[in-house]
């Protein structure tokens, strides 16, 4: 076995065998499981006990009111407000809802009053407002002698369906293209950001550990510093890939098994948001689902996955080699060294922010085009844009730059690392690190 592969093997095995790795790898999907169960639990949670509310309908606009979930409406009959209030005090009722008459029909805002010493839960308050508004609308239509059926004809749902002009782009896009693109690109960006940051810092920690342990000079007398650094970077990278593969497999299994076990449809998780509204037309929903599926299948997956891997490798090598260089300069004093990690973390975070703030609004804006080509940003930004079919020359340029930069940064880090790793008891500045790159062998 070559020395480099010996180092990679050790770096990989010691990490993968660690309890923290095994726990973390297993626990993340379990965490997802717990999260899903909590969401399911919350969505089926009925809120607090039912409340009884007397409705004092002064203008006879809204009665009778059918009961809401968690709210029972009781017609006031002939009781006065004062009598009702007493009933609230006597705990026979939870509150009194007084609906004053409308001043005139032009008036849009209408205030109704709720008498109680208990606070009305926001959820219930919203339900009641919505229900009363619907009732007032019906009352107005009735008063104005408007035909509800004919009024419905006034409503239209408008959506833009993008169409290409060149023939080869015909029917290439639909109104779901952007949404699906954002989802696919967003997930890739998110994964890349966290993987690069997490495993880059893992490399840094491990470099610092070797320096603090004082084993590094023993190692240097057997292997070239560059091999040691590369072994570490590659070893940790493989650990990252292992973990992601494990997560994907386990999460897939979890999200597949849980709904089966719970007899629960994942679509229902959205239930709290759509509650109270008219049910969605199942035909339309199926249609939307089909279109999204079609849109997903239209994505160039081999290209997406292929470039995901290249950008991951590119980004990982760029940033982990920066972190390795920083770790080599830092050594024991983590406190002082924190400032040194900023040059490596800022571009990474900036790229992530650009994508999450500007990317989804317009993936082809000048800022995004720049970010997807600039090699410190492109590993995060370009995968997002890839879901939107960017011009091929931008992809080619971005790929070239990212690969070239990865090579450059690994080389640069190697120059810094070989000096820094043997330097003890000295506070190191960025300027100092830059000087090291010019030292001979």
């Amino acid at each position, binding site marked *: *076995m070559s*020395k480099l592969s*010996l*180092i990679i093997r*050790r770096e990989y095995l*010691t990490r993968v065998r660690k309890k923290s790795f095994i726990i973390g790898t297993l626990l993340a999907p379990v965490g997802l499981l717990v999260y899903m169960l909590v969401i399911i639990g919350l969505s089926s949670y009925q809120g607090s006990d039912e409340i009884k509310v007397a409705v004092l309908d002064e203008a006879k606009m809204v009665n009778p009111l059918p009961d809401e979930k968690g709210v029972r409406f009781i017609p006031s009959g002939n009781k006065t407000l004062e009598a009702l209030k007493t009933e609230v005090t006597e705990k026979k009722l939870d509150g009194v809802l007084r609906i004053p008459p409308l001043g005139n029909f032009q008036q849009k805002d209408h205030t109704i009053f709720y008498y109680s010493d208990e606070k009305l839960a926001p959820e219930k308050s919203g339900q009641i407002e919505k229900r009363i508004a619907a009732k007032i609308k019906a009352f107005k239509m009735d008063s104005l002698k408007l035909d509800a059926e004919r009024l419905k004809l006034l409503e239209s749902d408008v959506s833009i369906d993008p169409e290409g002009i060149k023939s080869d782009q015909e029917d290439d896009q639909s109104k779901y293209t952007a949404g699906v693109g954002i989802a696919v690109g967003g997930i890739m960006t998110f994964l890349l950001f966290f993987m690069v940051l997490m495993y880059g810092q893992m490399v840094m920690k491990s470099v610092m550990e070797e320096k603090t*342990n*004082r*084993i*590094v*000079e*023993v*190692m*240097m*007398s*057997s*292997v*070239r*510093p560059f091999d040691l650094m590369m072994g570490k970077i590659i070893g940790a990278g493989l650990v990252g890939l292992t973990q992601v593969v494990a997560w994907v497999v386990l999460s897939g299994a979890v999200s597949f098994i849980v709904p089966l076990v719970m007899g629960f449809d994942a679509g229902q998780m959205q239930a709290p948001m759509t509650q109270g509204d008219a049910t969605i037309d199942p035909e339309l929903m199926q249609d939307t689902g089909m279109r999204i599926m079609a849109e997903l299948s239209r994505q160039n997956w081999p290209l997406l996955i292929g470039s995901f891997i290249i950008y991951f490798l590119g980004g990982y090598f760029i940033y982990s080699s920066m972190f390795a260089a920083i770790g080599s300069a830092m050594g024991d004093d983590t406190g002082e060294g924190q400032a040194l990690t900023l040059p490596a973390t800022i571009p990474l975070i900036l790229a992530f922010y650009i994508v999450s703030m500007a990317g989804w609004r317009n993936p082809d804006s000048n800022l995004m085009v720049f970010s997807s080509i600039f090699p410190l940003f492109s590993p995060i930004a370009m995968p997002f844009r890839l879901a939107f079919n960017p011009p091929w020359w931008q992809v080619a340029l971005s790929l070239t730059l990212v690969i070239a930069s990865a090579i450059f940064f690994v080389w640069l880090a190697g120059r810094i690392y*070989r*000096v820094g790793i*043997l330097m*003890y008891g000295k506070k190191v500045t960025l300027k100092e690190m830059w*000087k090291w790159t010019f*030292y*001979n*062998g």
Partner: protein
Amino acid sequence: MILSIQDVVKTYGDYMAVNHVSLEVQKGSVFGMLGPNGAGKTSLIRMITTITAPDSGTIYLDGAKLHSRSPEQIGYMPEERGLYKKMKVGEQLLYLAQLKGLTKAKAQQEIDMWFEKFDIKDWWNKKVEDLSKGMQQKIQFIATVLHNPKLLILDEPFTGLDPINTNLIKDEIGQLNAAGTSIIFSTHRMEQVEEMCDHIVLINKGKNVLYGEVQAIKNEYKQNLYRVETAGEPPTDLPDRFAVVKAEKNALTFKLDDEAQSNDLLKLFLQKGTRVTRFEEILPTFNEIFIQRVAETGD
């Protein structure tokens, strides 16, 4: 010649760590590289062990210019030394030995031999962090010599060693040397190694200030100090030209202007009828030689 260093220069930025140093180490010798902290010893060793490369000059190991496989012939115990704390002793030694070019089987065989020798056969599965400091030092030494290096370089070998391990390691070094391994000691504690070395180099501020055979250097730097031990009280009425630099109960130490006067000194004692039990020339220690030499060169 196991090691030949020719006009080697190493700079870090503006700082000249090694300034045109040349020296040679004979096969089978015990060579002392002496000098204060920061003199450039470690910089020099790092070039020998190929950790860094000289800016100019050449280093030959066993007749061949240093190359990528040279480290496999060198055992190096750096001053800054350590082990992977979380790794098991056996695995760690296997790993380090394989990095020195040994096959796994050969490494295993060597480890077994050393474990037997130090009577630590049950340590294989212990984590380094669970070992005492003294135990770790033993493992560190085994890791250094496991691959049977031709040249063993020990940088400040005895710092942090307890007396028992110091003796143990000294014995092992002696045995390795007897078996033909050439050894370089590097230390600022000159008195620690001068008894063990046959050749030395004194390094100060990156320069080779003194280099040669131990006895020859001592002779060159002797200050004509003579110590006379007597059976009774030594005489007091001595002529001024015999300056007493140190008076003990039964001995006097003189500094003579000229070594030819030593016979006169002895003659004087005999004339006085004092019974002389011992008459010896005091040779300087390397500490003293170093100080003198540095004063001479004006650095």
